[in-house]
Each structure stands twice: as structure tokens, then as C-alpha cells.
């Protein structure tokens, strides 16, 4: 058999060639010079040549390799032919006897302007024929496959680039859940790099839990693989990063399928939703805020169509959101306010903001409600005004308070005005007409009556009225106590409020009913417990008065009563003042008369004494009589000063002493005695009780000096001097000083035990004045008496 095998049969080559002819692979039979001995149909087709054109040519020539023209020898002689893989593979096979398998090569073929690149795999197989050894060359054309592969790669690269560049994180896994790909965002969010994560189970890298329960969430990869469909992640998913920090994410997973639709992996796409969460939380809070606000918060478009309506709006206006949204805002606008809405929308359209605009709005029940409105434009990102947000605050309470304050102010103003009116007139009862008119205007009353009680009678007389005809007034001009409302009030001194008079069976209100008065309040004018009249107000359009109205009427009534009583008291006071003045004047006259007569009587006495003295022959007795005369004159002078002074009880010592000393020394100096009188008396006003003792003391001391201080003065020319001084000491005391420059008192003179009547008088009077007496005297060096006494 071996001989038979070494010796191929003759038809073997032909049979082989026939076998290869229809193989769908290009097959060449070449010799060791790379000449093609035989090319099958596929090869010829590949070379785009006929069988004749290929057979007997080197393969490069046959296939029109672009390098087959490089040299005149054709294929194998060109400068680059040494590197030809086809040629080398064939030659290598011949040289080594080892068949080569699927060596990839490429080349440019076709001697045209546009040569074609072919990529193919070359395999060789030596075949020994009896006469020669040839090489079978299989050429697998893989150009199309390679091109497709290149396209695929390019496509993949494009995808990869896209995945890298998108904002979402992307993780791809194989069907086992092992990571095959992560983009940069996924790396950043998970904290894992692709290098570290690749081929690791996705659950270790993409570790997610539920935000609230903190339970591990089932792997989306597993879910996708199980269900073979796209799955979204559950809400509230938290990704735990490699470093343990947490990120809220939002995401989906999808299967990756091959051309045939088989699942070859899973792709997870997720993103960081921290900001979105925050925004959602904020808008949630804002929505809650709007919804829970007490104020009505409404948004509308620029046409005035309501877009949103919160609970506050429902409460304030009475319409539910369901009723209001989509309607035109005009149903909230009371008649006469339509222009206001247009003006607001116009201003808002220009981007203006309107604050605290006070107006009225209609409620569902038809009532109006005072509101403070704030309007703001709603703008888009570009600042374009899309609509209006409106906040309406119910200011009913505030308005009510403001109105109350305003009314209170008006009331106080009114009361101040009435008080002023009443105080500024001589006859308060004469202005009640005007005054009550003002009060009626404020109270919105239609009638008033003012009655005054006629002195000492049981009747009242109409003093002022308003709101009834003159004839009707005549009829009720004079009323007896009782019978009517006013008559009862005047009699009892208690107010009567008659209300709902049309339905009031009280007989006393009959007259009021006939006048169409429905509500009537009559207050007594009372002062110091005495009722002097009534003041009443009536309304024809309502059956009741408020407490405030009745309070005001009561206050005004008191004012009027006080004013009338004040007037009466003033008159009485004036009268009694006048009586007092008259009585005082009479008393003053009487007192002046008494002083005058006393003075005159004292003069009569001194004259009588003078007459008596002249009839006395005893010189000593006559001198004593003169002393007596002098003392009485000193007292008479006090009375004279008193009745001449404006004040009948006080007199000025300066005036009195000056006159007294003049009178005294005048009588003593009738002779030619050389004695000077020095007066230094200041003003000191005292009562008669101090003036008389003071005058008598001065009289005694000057007389003493005149009589005893200057025994030699009559004969020699020695100047004698007597000083009289008086000055206030402090506020309460007076110092009286009488001095001379005479011979001085006898040694050992004690005023308290003095035997002379003069000094006795001085001492006793000084004691009566509660005074202190200081005597300074020395023989030949004069005498000084200083008496300090209390003014009062």
C-alpha cells in the first residue's frame, strides 16, 4: 500500500482539480515560483479574470496586485515584494514543508485608478504529485467581514463616547450581573472606578436602599433579567456610595439584546436627584404654605381667568377651588369696581408690584368684604409676565376697629364741642337747641325735646325742641308731672328708654307714637340730686338705640345739667360776693369811725388833762400831768394812723415813729435846748397790738433822755444827741433802739426793779411784746436801750 500511496495515480491531480473547482473558497495550485498552475472558479472570480488569464501567471500578476507593476519582472520583483505575505507564506511552506493556516493579509488589487483593497486569510497545503510538489493556496476573502467589524467598532466607539458624555450615570452588566461598563458619571456617583468595578457583581457597586425603610432594594439587574423588560427604580431610592455617603437617585434599567434579540446584558441608567428632591421639597412646602395660609391666595392669567385658588380663598370668598378655577375673576368684583381690575392687570402687565391696595370684594353670599390686596406679576424664566398672583387679606376686623376709633373720636370731638358751647355762654338753656342739633346729627336721630321744670311747680315747660311742627310743639309746651315719658322722668329723676314704640302698650308713649317716633330716650337733667328738667332724643327709622348712643345722650344730658347748675351757682356766688363786699365796706366804715372817735376822745382827754395841768401849782405834779398827756397822745396817734391807713389793722412803724418823735421833741425843744434828734427808722408794718406798746416805749425813753440825760445842756453848748432807730431783724423780729450821749444811768440801775414809773412802763411793755431788753450805759458815756421783739 505504501508504494501505491507514494505513487499517486495519474488521475489524482485531475480529480483534485475537479474537486477544488467548485469549492466556494478561492483555491490556487501554485508552484515554488508562485506561478499559478490552476485557479478554481472562485479564485478566478476573485481576481476578476478568466481561467486563462490566471493560469501560468504569478499570483500577483494574476490578481493585478498594484505592486506587480513595480518592476519589469512583474510579481515578486518589486521593491516591496519581499514583504508580501502571500508570497512569503507560500515560499515558507515550500521551504519548511509546514502548512500555514489562515495568515491574514491585505493588498490592493486592480490596475486602475481605483484599486480595490482585499483582505483575506491565506492557508497553504503542500501537495506532492509524482512529478512535482505544488502548494494548494486557500484564499478566504474576509474583506466584507472586516469592513463590518470595523463599522461595528466605530459604532461601539460612538456609543461609548455618547455614554461618557451624557449627564446620566450608566452601568452595563453581562447576564450574570457583572459590571462590564461604567461611564464617568457612574464612577463619580458610585465612587467606584471602572477599573475597580469591572467584572464585579453590580450589587456590590450599585448598592441601593429605600429612603424611608432603609431596606436593601432588589437589584434592578436581577429584575430586568427576570422580566426581560425595562424597569423603573422604585421611588425614594438612595444610592450608598463607596465611601458610605448617600445620594437620592432616580432610575431605570433595561436589557441589552444582540442582533437576534437575545439578552446579553443589562444597562442601568440613573441620576442624582438631590437638587430635584430639594426643589420638590421646597415647592411642596410652598404649596402647603399657600394652602394653609389664612389669606386668600389666587393666581390668574392676564385675561383675568383664575388659575389657582387656595383654602384661604375658599374661606374668605365662600367659593370652592372647584367653583372658582377657570372662571373670570369678575365674579368677585362688586359693582363700581370693574375699572379697578383692568387698571391692576394693566399695571401688573408692566411688571409692577401692587401692595396693600384696599378695596371691597364680593362673597358668595352676596355680602361685600373689605380686603387688603397685594398683587405681584408671575413671570417666566425670561421675565415675561404670564399672570398675576393676588393675596387678599380680610381687614373686616381692622376696618371695624378703625371705624370704632373714628366714631369714638367723633364722639369725643362732639362732647368737647358741646362742653365748649355750654361753658362759653351766659345762658346755657338758650343754646340747647343748637347743641342738641349737633348731637342729633351724630346719633342720626329725628327729634329731641328739652323740658325744664318750672320752679316750685309740678310742671315742665318745653325749652327747646326739634323734629316736630310748631303747632304740635304748642300742644306739648307745658306738661304736668307724670302722664308722658318726659313728665315721668321729670317727676322721678330716672331716665326712661322707650323702644319699639309702635308695639309698645305703655300709655305714656302714646304721644310719641302719634309723632311717628319708634325709639325714644329721655334723660333727667340732674344736678346735686335735684332734677331741673329733661333732655330726650327720638328716632323714627329704628326701634332701638345702642348702648353707645344712650351713653352719649346721658353724657350730653349731664353736661347740660352741669352747665345750667353752674350758671345758677355762679349767680348765687356773685350775689353772695356782692353782699359780702357790702358788709365788709360797712364794717370798714364802722372801724374807721371807731378809730376816729377814739382818737378824738383821746384828744379831748389830753386837752382836759392840759387844762387840769395848768391849774396845778405844784411843778412836780404838773410835770407828771404832762407826762400823762404825752402818753395819751402817743396812743391817739396810733388810732389816727390806723384810720388813715388803707389797712385798718396794720400800720407802718416808720411813719408812726417819725410823727411821734417829731411831736414829742417839738414839745420838749420849745426852749432853746441844744439837743439833736437822729432818726433812723426803716419800714416795719405791725398790728395795733405791737404799735401801741412800741409807741409808749419810745415816748418813755425819749422823755427820760430829755429830762435826765442832759442836765447841763441848758447852760453850756455841749451838743446833746438822741438817736431813735428801728429795723427788722430777720423776717420775724424788730429791733428798736433809743440812745443818747448824755450822762448815763445811775450805777446799778436794774430795769426789772426800777422805781421810776417810766422805766417800769418800758419793762412791762417790753415783756408784753415778748421782747428782750438790752441796756448799755456808763456814767458820762450815754445810755442805749435795745429792745428786740417779735413782729407778730
Amino acid at each position, binding site marked *: 500500500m505504501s508504494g501505491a500511496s507514494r505513487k499517486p495515480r495519474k488521475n489524482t491531480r485531475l480529480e483534485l482539480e475537479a474537486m477544488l473547482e467548485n469549492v466556494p473558497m478561492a483555491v490556487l495550485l501554485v508552484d515554488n515560483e508562485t506561478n499559478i498552475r490552476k485557479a478554481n472558479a472562485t479564485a478566478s472570480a476573485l481576481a476578476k479574470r478568466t481561467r486563462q488569464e490566471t493560469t501560468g501567471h504569478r499570483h500577483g500578476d494574476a490578481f493585478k496586485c498594484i505592486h506587480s507593476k513595480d518592476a519589469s519582472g512583474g510579481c515578486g520583483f518589486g521593491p516591496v515584494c519581499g514583504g508580501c505575505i502571500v508570497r512569503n507564506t507560500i515560499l515558507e511552506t515550500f521551504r519548511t514543508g509546514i502548512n500555514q493556516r489562515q495568515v491574514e493579509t491585505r493588498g490592493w488589487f486592480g490596475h486602475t485608478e481605483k484599486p480595490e483593497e482585499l483582505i483575506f486569510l491565506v492557508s497553504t497545503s503542500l501537495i506532492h504529485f509524482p512529478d512535482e510538489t505544488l502548494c494548494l493556496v486557500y484564499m478566504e476573502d474576509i474583506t466584507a467581514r472586516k469592513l463590518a467589524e470595523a463599522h461595528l467598532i466605530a459604532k461601539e466607539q460612538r456609543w461609548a463616547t455618547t455614554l461618557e458624555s451624557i449627564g446620566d450615570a450608566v452601568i452595563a452588566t453581562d447576564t450574570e450581573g457583572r459590571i462590564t461598563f461604567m461611564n464617568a458619571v457612574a464612577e463619580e456617583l458610585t465612587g467606584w472606578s471602572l477599573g475597580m468595578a469591572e467584572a464585579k457583581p453590580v450589587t456590590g457597586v450599585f448598592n441601593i436602599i429605600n429612603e424611608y425603610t432603609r431596606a436593601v432594594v432588589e437589584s434592578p439587574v436581577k429584575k430586568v433579567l427576570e422580566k426581560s423588560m425595562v424597569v423603573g427604580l422604585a421611588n425614594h431610592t438612595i444610592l450608598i456610595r463607596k465611601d458610605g455617603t448617600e445620594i437620592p437617585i432616580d432610575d431605570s434599567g433595561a436589557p441589552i439584546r444582540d442582533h437576534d434579540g437575545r439578552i446579553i446584558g443589562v444597562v442601568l441608567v440613573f441620576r442624582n436627584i438631590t437638587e430635584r428632591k430639594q426643589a420638590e421639597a421646597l415647592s411642596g412646602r410652598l404649596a402647603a404654605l399657600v394652602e394653609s395660609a389664612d389669606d386668600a391666595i389666587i393666581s390668574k392669567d392676564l385675561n383675568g381667568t383664575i388659575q389657582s385658588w387656595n383654602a384661604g380663598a375658599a374661606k374668605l370668598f365662600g367659593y370652592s377651588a372647584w367653583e372658582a378655577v377657570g372662571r373670570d375673576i369678575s365674579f368677585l368684583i362688586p359693582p363700581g369696581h370693574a375699572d379697578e381690575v383692568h387698571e391692576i392687570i394693566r399695571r401688573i402687565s408692566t411688571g409692577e408690584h401692587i401692595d396693600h391696595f384696599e378695596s371691597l370684594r364680593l362673597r358668595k353670599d352676596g355680602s361685600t368684604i373689605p380686603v387688603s390686596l397685594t398683587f405681584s406679576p408671575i413671570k417666566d424664566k425670561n421675565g415675561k409676565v404670564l399672570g398675576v398672583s393676588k393675596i387678599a387679606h380680610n381687614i373686616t376686623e381692622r376696618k371695624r376697629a378703625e371705624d370704632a376709633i373714628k366714631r369714638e373720636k367723633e364722639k369725643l370731638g362732639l362732647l368737647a364741642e358741646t362742653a365748649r358751647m355750654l361753658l362759653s355762654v351766659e345762658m346755657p338753656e338758650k343754646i340747647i337747641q343748637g347743641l342738641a342739633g349737633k348731637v342729633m346729627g351724630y346719633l342720626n336721630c329725628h327729634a329731641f325735646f328739652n323740658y325744664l321744670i318750672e320752679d316750685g311747680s309740678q310742671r315742665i315747660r318745653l325749652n327747646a325742641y326739634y323734629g316736630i311742627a310748631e303747632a304740635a310743639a304748642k300742644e306739648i309746651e307745658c306738661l304736668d308731672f307724670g302722664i308722658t315719658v318726659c313728665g315721668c322722668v321729670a317727676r322721678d329723676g330716672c331716665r326712661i328708654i322707650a323702644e319699639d314704640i309702635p308695639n309698645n302698650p305703655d300709655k305714656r308713649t302714646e304721644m310719641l307714637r302719634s309723632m311717628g317716633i319708634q325709639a325714644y330716650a329721655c334723660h333727667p337733667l340732674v344736678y346735686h340730686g335735684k332734677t331741673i328738667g329733661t333732655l330726650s332724643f327720638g328716632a323714627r327709622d329704628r326701634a332701638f338705640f345702642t348702648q353707645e348712643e344712650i351713653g352719649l345722650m346721658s353724657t350730653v344730658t349731664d353736661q347740660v345739667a352741669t352747665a345750667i347748675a353752674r350758671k345758677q351757682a355762679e349767680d348765687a356766688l356773685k350775689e353772695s360776693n356782692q353782699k359780702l363786699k357790702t358788709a365788709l365796706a360797712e364794717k370798714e366804715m364802722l372801724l374807721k369811725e371807731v378809730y376816729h372817735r377814739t382818737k378824738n376822745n383821746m384828744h379831748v382827754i389830753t386837752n382836759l388833762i392840759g387844762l387840769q395841768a395848768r391849774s396845778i401849782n405844784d411843778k412836780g405834779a404838773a410835770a407828771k400831768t404832762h407826762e400823762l398827756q404825752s402818753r395819751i397822745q402817743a396812743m391817739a396817734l396810733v388810732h389816727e394812723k390806723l384810720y388813715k391807713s388803707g389797712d385798718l389793722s396794720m400800720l407802718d412803724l416808720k411813719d408812726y415813729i417819725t410823727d411821734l418823735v417829731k411831736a414829742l421833741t417839738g414839745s420838749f425843744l420849745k426852749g432853746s435846748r441844744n439837743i439833736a434828734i437822729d432818726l433812723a427808722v426803716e419800714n416795719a408794718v405791725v398790728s395795733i397790738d405791737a404799735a401801741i*406798746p412800741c409807741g409808749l416805749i419810745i415816748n418813755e425813753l425819749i422823755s427820760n433822755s430829755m429830762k435826765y440825760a442832759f442836765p447841763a445842756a441848758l447852760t453850756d453848748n455841749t451838743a446833746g444827741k438822741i438817736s431813735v432807730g428801728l429795723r427788722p431783724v430777720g423776717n420775724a423780729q424788730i429791733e428798736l433802739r433809743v440812745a443818747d450821749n448824755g450822762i448815763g444811768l445811775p450805777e446799778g440801775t436794774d430795769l426789772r426793779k426800777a422805781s421810776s414809773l417810766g422805766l*417800769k*412802763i418800758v419793762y*412791762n*411793755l417790753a*415783756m*408784753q411784746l415778748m421782747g428782750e431788753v438790752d441796756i448799755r450805759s456808763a456814767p458820762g458815756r450815754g445810755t442805749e436801750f435795745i429792745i428786740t421783739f417779735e413782729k407778730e
Partner: protein
Amino acid sequence: MKNKILIVEDEALGALGLSDLFDKWGYEVCGSAYSGARAIRLDEECGPDLITMDVRIKGELDGIETARRIRAKKFVPIIFLSGYLREGVKEEVGIPDGVEFLNKPVNEEILKETVEKLLNNTKHTGQA
């Protein structure tokens, strides 16, 4: 032994006049007071046998009240002197014995008799 007399009188010259008279009649003027308070003190100091008491005097106490206070402690005859003696003043004073009332200006003879009478009565009744 001279009988001692205390003069209560706010008019200095009035006091002086009385003092002169009592001196002349042989009595000793043991004190002269212008006010009730001073009268009460002098009465304690000098222990008079008789007091002349002006009804209107200076200070818070009038003559009547001063007399009442002095007599509340001991017996001493008192002669009230007044410019104007009201009706019923005796009853007002309410001192039953050892008291006399005289109008001012006083008659010297009547004063002398009254003083003597009162002093004698005191001796006879043994009151001192």
C-alpha cells in the same frame, strides 16, 4: 407775814396798775403772768394766797381754763377780771366757792374789799 397775790393779766399797764395797788395795800405781788401756761408755773413756784385772773389772756389757755387747772390741784381764791363779763359766766366757770367776778376798769374800793373778803373767808374756813 404778807399775803401773796399772783396777777394774771396780758395788758402790761393793767398788771402794773394792779401791782401798784396791791403793794400800797400791803400785799406781796409774788408774780405777774401774761399767759395761762406761765400762770400755772408761777402758781407752783410762789404758792399765792390769791390770784387775780384776766379772762382774756395770751396763749392757748384762757383765764377760765387756767383757773380750772389750778383749782383742780389745790384751793386758792381767784378773782376774775374782765372788760365784759358774759351772762352765766359763773355757771360756765363751774367753780362753786372761793371765786369772785369783777368788771374792768375795776373800782379800787370794791377790789380791796373783795380781796380782803376772800382772804378772810379762807382763814375762817381753814382752807389753804
